[in-house]
Structures are given as structure tokens and as C-alpha cells.
């Protein structure tokens, strides 16, 4: 039997870019390497092992799905599975057991990507959906397992998971209660002022808040010397990678800027104890916002293509992130906000489609 022939169908404009999936994906991998190095430095070789397992599982799952669906096996090497694997591992707490990244990657590739038709057809970001699957399936493992950076090298390195410098922590009464949590966990607790004050003494809430917003903490947050998911902690190195992508013309800045800008603005509006006294810098630096904003909000397949649509996407995701952080059940809402906006992407594209030249605007 003759092989069926495939014709390539594409809508206009028929201008071919110089980018190929492969080139783009390997640029993204390169951009993620600095943050990976930071992860290994802070959380130990175990972080690298988890990333490798995740990527390996993603490749195997990709190969198996393509085989099963009788699609060209060469897609395995387009690099997209590698990126998914790395991003998924970046979203895991560093102390999870080895099979967590394997299960998550397999789910991300098989269910979130290939079941929808493979690269370009997936509705939601596979890595984030893989993470959502893991959080729903293994809530205990996925919400604990934070490691203090540098802990694997020696004890007592002066680093805490909260990012608050140790000497500052010593001044807060009852602070031992907040040493094992990520900065966002602590921020979440301070929203319930009454509880925090009753447990740690009058005025503790304000003291903790001040420490979270102090220069020493900012520095730790920016460098990544805090507890958190494997690849999300180091804002500096993620930014470095993103700059490389911008220089290569892979990353379009509208999405990240509108997303991070919204988080900062809303962090100031309601990210604090009252209105208009939050700390925008803290909200941008803590948690997964930088990783999400630079590498997941900008995923080409699952985000809008129109310039206006991209801004809407970024603002919407930022809004959801901050609402979850302030009032939701989880301390961090970055991944869910992006998944939710992924679902809205076709709608956004539809309503922001540019008018065809010469088309008369319908008045209504």
C-alpha cells in the first residue's frame, strides 16, 4: 500500500520564518541551563538527577506515543519534549521521590500533549498540566519537601528556606515556626494576622512582613537562596536566560512584561495586609512568577498570537495568580493561572484578530 500523501495546509500570510521548532527549542534549553546550574548549586546533584529523569521520561513517553499513533518518530528529536521535561522538573520541590518527575513527565506528554494531537495542537502547557496532575494526585509530596539551599553541602550555612537572613530571623519571637517554609507559605500565613499574632506574640505579623521585604531577603530571593521548586528560585539566572532568548528573537516581551507588571501592580494593591500597601518586589521575586512569566506564559503554542491578545493573556494570568496568592487555598497560583488562561487563548485570539485590510468595521 502506498504511503498516504500529506499536503501542507496553512492560512495566509504565506511568509516563511527562519525559525524552526528545533532551533527554537534548543535555544530554550540553552536559556534554561543557568537556572539549572543554580538549582544544582543550591539543592545538590539530586536536582540534576530529577531533571534528567524528567527529560528521559518525557522522551520515552514521546517515542511511545508517536509509535502508538503511527506518527513520524522524528518528532521525538524536535526538542519540545526536552523542554517540557526540564520545565516540569523545574516545577517540583527538590525533595520529591524519583518517580514523581517520571510520572509527571509521562502524563504531560501522553495526556496533555500527544492525546490532543502533538506539538502545536495541545491546548494547555504540558509541563504545567503535568504539575497540576502531580499536585492533585500526590498533594502531600508536592506541598512539602522544601530544602534549605546549600543544606546538602554542610549544616548551618546561614541560609533559610524563607529567604529571611538568619540574623534577622533570630530577632523574631517564635520564628522557628517559619524556618521550614517557602517565602510564599509565610506570606500566606501573615494574611491571617490574628492567628499569627496569637501564636508568635503580638506584632509578629508586622515583624515577619518587614523581614520578608528587607534588603537581605530581596537579595536571597533574587539570587535563589531560598526554599522553593527546583528551577524557580533564581530570578537572576532565569532573567539571564530570558535575555538570551530575547536576543535570539525567540521570546516576545509583551507576554512576560504584561504578566510580571500585573503581578507587581496587584502585589502593591492587595498583596499586603490592607489595600495599597503590599510589596510589589516581593511578589515578583517570590515563588514561580519569574519562571512562569518568562518561560511558560511565553509558550508559543498555548498563548495568543495577536499583540493585543498577548497583553490580555498576561494581565489575566497576573490577576489570577495574585487572587490565588491572596485569597486562594494555595500559597502560589502561578501555574493554575497560566493553565486557566491557556484555556481562554482561542477566545482571546478570536476577539483580537486584526481586521483584514480594507474590511469595514461593523457597527453594532
Amino acid at each position, binding site marked *: 500500500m502506498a504511503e498516504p500523501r500529506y499536503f501542507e495546509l496553512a492560512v495566509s500570510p504565506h511568509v516563511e520564518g527562519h525559525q524552526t521548532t528545533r532551533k527554537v527549542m534548543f535555544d530554550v534549553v540553552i536559556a534554561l541551563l543557568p537556572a539549572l546550574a543554580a538549582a544544582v548549586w543550591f539543592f545538590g546533584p539530586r536536582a540534576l538527577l530529577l531533571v534528567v529523569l524528567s527529560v528521559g521520561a518525557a522522551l520515552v513517553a514521546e517515542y511511545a506515543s508517536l509509535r502508538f499513533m503511527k506518527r513520524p518518530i522524528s518528532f521525538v528529536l524536535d526538542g519540545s519534549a526536552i523542554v517540557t521535561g526540564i520545565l516540569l522538573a523545574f516545577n517540583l520541590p527538590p525533595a520529591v521521590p524519583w518517580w514523581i518527575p517520571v510520572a509527571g513527565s509521562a502524563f504531560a506528554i501522553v495526556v496533555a500533549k500527544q492525546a490532543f494531537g502533538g506539538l502545536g495542537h495541545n491546548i494547555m502547557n504540558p509541563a504545567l498540566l503535568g504539575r497540576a496532575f502531580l499536585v492533585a494526585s500526590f498533594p*502531600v509530596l508536592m506541598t512539602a519537601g522544601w530544602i534549605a539551599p546549600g543544606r546538602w553541602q554542610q549544616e548551618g550555612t546561614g541560609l533559610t528556606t524563607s529567604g529571611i537572613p538568619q540574623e534577622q530571623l533570630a530577632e523574631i519571637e517564635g520564628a522557628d515556626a517559619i524556618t521550614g517554609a517557602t517565602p510564599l507559605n509565610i506570606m500566606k500565613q501573615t494574611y491571617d494576622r490574628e492567628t499569627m499574632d496569637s501564636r508568635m506574640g503580638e506584632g509578629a505579623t508586622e515583624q515577619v512582613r518587614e523581614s520578608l521585604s528587607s534588603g537581605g531577603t530581596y537579595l536571597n530571593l533574587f539570587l535563589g537562596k531560598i526554599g522553593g521548586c527546583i528551577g524557580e528560585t533564581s530570578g537572576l539566572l532565569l532573567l539571564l536566560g530570558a535575555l538570551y532568548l530575547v536576543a535570539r528573537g525567540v521570546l516576545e516581551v509583551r507576554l512576560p512584561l504584561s504578566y510580571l507588571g500585573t503581578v507587581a501592580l496587584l502585589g502593591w494593591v492587595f498583596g499586603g495586609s490592607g489595600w495599597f500597601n503590599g510589596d510589589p518586589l516581593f511578589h515578583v521575586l517570590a515563588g514561580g512568577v519569574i519562571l512562569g512569566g518568562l518561560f511558560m506564559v511565553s509558550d508559543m503554542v498555548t498563548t495568543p498570537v495577536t499583540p493585543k491578545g498577548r497583553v490580555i493573556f498576561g494581565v489575566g494570568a497576573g490577576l489570577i495568580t495574585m487572587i490565588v496568592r491572596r485569597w486562594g487555598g494555595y500559597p502560589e497560583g502561578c501555574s493554575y493561572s497560566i493553565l486557566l488562561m491557556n484555556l481562554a487563548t482561542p477566545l482571546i485570539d478570536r476577539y483580537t484578530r486584526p481586521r483584514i485590510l480594507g474590511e469595514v468595521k461593523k457597527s453594532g
Partner: protein
Amino acid sequence: MGEILRLGLILMLVALVAAVALGFVNSKTAPIIEEQERMRRQEAMRTVTSSLGDSLQFDSLAVEGLANPYAMVDRRLAVVAVSDAVSGDRLGYTFVAYGKGYSSTVQTMVGVDSSGRIVGCSILYQQETPGLGANAENQPWIGQFEGKRISQCSVRKDGGEIDSITGATITSRAVSDSVREGLEAMREQDLFEGGERA
């Protein structure tokens, strides 16, 4: 006009037959259902107070502001007094605590001794997430209420001594807060000996 009347009559006839059939079955099953519910509560009452004695007597407590069959409405709750069946000494109380959980109102049967110390708890009803909140039913978790006093009866996050179920803080809070609120309401009525305070 006649057409509509005819259709209406037929519909009415169908509904009438249905109503009669249902009424009949209901008259047969309602007492059984009620009896079963009563037995279940009785059984739960006995379990949570089993450490108070062997032969116990349960009487609805008709304290002003407390006796209410619908429980916890207007911050009142139905308290059942537990006393020794032979000597008649007051040994403790039981009540049902209603707490709003993640996906249901969790009902907890609570037994306390006369000093206000919890002697037993068991979940009567819950529809929480299986594998997470639903684990509240299991002994290792609900069992930790035994021996607790009012002030200890909230989750650790809120400054109490109850360990929350991992991944199900809302359910843990619902149970411990509702139990505590019930105990507080009873304390306000001076039901506990020795003026149990925080």
C-alpha cells in the same frame, strides 16, 4: 378546550396514581429510616462515651437555650446528658457538631466528661474528598481529640493541638472548630464542673 381538559385529566390521573404509590411506600419505609437514623446516633453516642461507664443512660437536656433538635441553629445545640443508669450521677454529655468542610457539612458526634474533657469523637456524616478530607473518619485522626480540652481543640496552624490531615486543612479545621464551638457554648451555660476555663 375539550382537548386541553382531556390532556389535563390524563396527566392528573398519572400523577395521582404516582402520588398514591409513593405515599404508600413512604408510609412503610419512613419509620424504618427514622429508626435506623436513631439507632446510628445512639450507636455513635455509645461509642464516644464508652469510657465513661458500662451502663449509661442518655437524656435530652432541656436547658434553656441549648435544647434544639436542629442543633447549632442560632448557636444553640442539642446536648444529651449522660448519666450512670444505676446511681443516676451525671457523667458527661454528648452533642453533634456541625462544621462546614470542603465539600459537605461534616457532622461529628462528640462525647465529653462532666469536666469538659473530650472522651471520644466520631464522624457521623461527611462527603469530603476521598483520600484527603475523608480520612477524618479514620481512627488515627479523629482519635486525637480524645483527652483534649476546649483550648486545645483547634488545628496547630491556629494555635491548638490537633494535627491537620495533610492536604486537607479545611476539613481538619471544620471538625476541630465546630467541636470547640460546641464546647464553648456548653461552657457558657455552666454545664461543666469546676468552672472549666481556657
